[in-house]
């Protein structure tokens, strides 16, 4: 038995048609229940402790594929949703972080050094060294809480599907878009509010956000492709896009230590939906489109990426 966990929709065109809806149908089984976010909002302590455990997992995973930390954090959230407890003891949170990381590594067949994990976890801390049996026992507890359903459907699972909808022909451009979206997905997962959305919604919003930054002139075509997808709820994508936008802007501003309000419209996605509606009503509205292009602020997303204009493809 074998399966491609990272890319269950890989070679999308080779799959029978019923495989796509099945992934959209079952994705809700792999995320924390809806009331999980509300329970966190009630307690600042829990939010900060979750952030600490997420940070531990990120340290453990920094040299691995981004799916690994995402999967581990998904286990963490599902476990906390099930148990309803966060421990004030730092060593307990470390044990939980190690166990979630270890389980994710096993699911992804990723080899890692237990010694490296121990060294990293003990850095700046005279505290516990966990025996293999202790980690195993904690793994068993997490497995039980998650009912051994460790094949989580993550936003990464949906990226190839949506990228195919965009019809970018150049493989290099597709990879740039995928990488940008992956970065956004990982950063977003650190914040509780993104957990309210389904993985497919997060994937669609992250891709739209990345395409807005990287391919602003193609953005309206991508937006239309996402809007036309029958498995996606447009309103939810708008909400998720705005959450992602806020998270990304907060991080951007914290790095630059800027306190000014954002120049970019908060509801940029709303504006583009309105723009599309306007086009449908009035036919082609060249003036509006041109103004949109001029007004839009282009930001390099951490990289100096130049894209040859000749590679663009009109929908």
């Amino acid at each position, binding site marked *: 038995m074998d399966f491609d966990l990272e890319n269950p929709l890989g070679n999308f065109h080779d799959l*029978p048609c019923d495989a796509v809806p099945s992934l959209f149908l079952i994705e809700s089984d792999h995320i924390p229940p809806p009331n999980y976010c509300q329970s966190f909002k009630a307690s600042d302590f829990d939010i900060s402790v979750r952030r600490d455990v997420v940070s531990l997992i990120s340290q453990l995973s920094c040299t691995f594929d981004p799916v690994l930390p995402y999967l581990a954090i998904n286990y963490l959230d599902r476990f906390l949703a099930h148990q309803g407890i966060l421990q004030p003891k730092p060593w307990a949170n470390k044990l939980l972080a190690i166990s979630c990381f270890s389980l994710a590594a096993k699911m992804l067949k990723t080899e890692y050094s237990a010694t490296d994990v121990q060294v990293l976890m003990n850095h700046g801390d005279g505290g516990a060294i966990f025996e293999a049996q202790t980690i195993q026992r904690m793994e068993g507890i997490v497995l*039980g809480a998650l009912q*051994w359903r460790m094949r989580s459907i993550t936003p990464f699972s949906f990226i190839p599907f949506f990228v195919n909808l965009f019809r970018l022909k150049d493989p290099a451009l597709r990879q740039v878009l995928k990488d940008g979206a992956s970065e956004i997905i990982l950063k977003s997962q650190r914040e509780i509010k993104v957990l309210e959305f389904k993985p497919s919604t997060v994937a669609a919003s992250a891709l739209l956000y990345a395409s807005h930054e990287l391919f602003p002139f193609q953005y309206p075509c991508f937006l239309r492709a996402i809007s036309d997808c029958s498995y996606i709820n447009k309103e939810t994508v708008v909400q998720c896009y705005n959450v992602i936008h806020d998270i990304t802007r907060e991080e951007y501003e914290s790095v630059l230590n800027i306190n000014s309000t954002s120049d970019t419209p908060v509801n940029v996605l709303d504006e583009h939906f309105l723009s599309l509606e306007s086009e449908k009503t009035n036919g082609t509205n060249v003036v509006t489109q041109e103004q949109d292009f001029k007004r839009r602020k282009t930001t390099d997303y951490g990289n100096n990426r130049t894209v040859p204009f000749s590679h663009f493809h009109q929908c």
Partner: protein
Amino acid sequence: MWNEESDWIGSFDALLARLAECSMCSRRSGERPGAAQMDVKILDVAAEGGYGRVFRCLDVHTGALVAMKQITMVRLSQGIPAQIIREVSLLRELHHANIVKLLRVGFTENRYVNLVFEHLDYDLHQFIVNRGYPKDATTVKSFMFQILSAVAYCHSRKVLHRDLKPSNVLINHSKRLIKLADFGLAREFADDFLYTEKLGTSWYRAPEILCHSRQYSTQVDLWSVGCIFAEMVIGQPLFQVINCRDELEGIFKLLGTPTEETWPGITKLMPNLHIYCSKFDPLGLETFVTDLEPSGLNLLSMMLCLDPSKRISAEASLKHAYFTDVNWI
């Protein structure tokens, strides 16, 4: 620190004990590890192998017969083995009428993972050996349709079985219901066991696996299904009938030695193909698989196709003319 740690973990155990309603991994602290922990009463040992044992049990809640597979864990320095986590996790995602259902998972620390499955009366191997193979065409067709339905479901979810054979096809006697089982569970722990039965298992292995290709895919399962199909018709393993020193020789003897025209890429895959060159003209499936209607033979030939890229898929098989015969529906 040790006490603190122990208390903390113990508190989670206590929490889990409150989830008595939970059908997964229900545990009660202080209770003896083993069958009681899994809410089953052991009746007898149904099978034994290098991986562990299979017990026939009664579910204490429902009174139903269940099968508990007990897998011995090894390499505990890395915690619960990755292979077990992956396989169980995958089984938890498979919901199909023709796939055996995993009811419960539990693990006793330092020793076993216990998997409780629904129980079926016997497997197809036993059916063929003890009761005479399904002589009537209706039963063969019904069994084939159910097997292919399960395989198509798995493949639509990018899941391969890779070890399909009659002993992994379970049968509910009264309903004539088929369920696939043993999705590679514990393979990593059963290498020695498999080797002792190498001849048995390799009768159902696709040629691209026998060539040690690392780039195989869903087509390997269709080859195995084809072998099962033939076996139901003739009453014994197809490639046992063709008595050869190795399985590839048997395959080529039956279907002809492949060439670059019949199987593009074969000379790279098998540099030593010249050993078989011009040695065999195909005997043909019809030589051995008699008493199968023409459309069935046609379907079988598309399953037992040497070139994996030309082999029929499970989904396409279900639409084949062999299954459109209204007489069996």
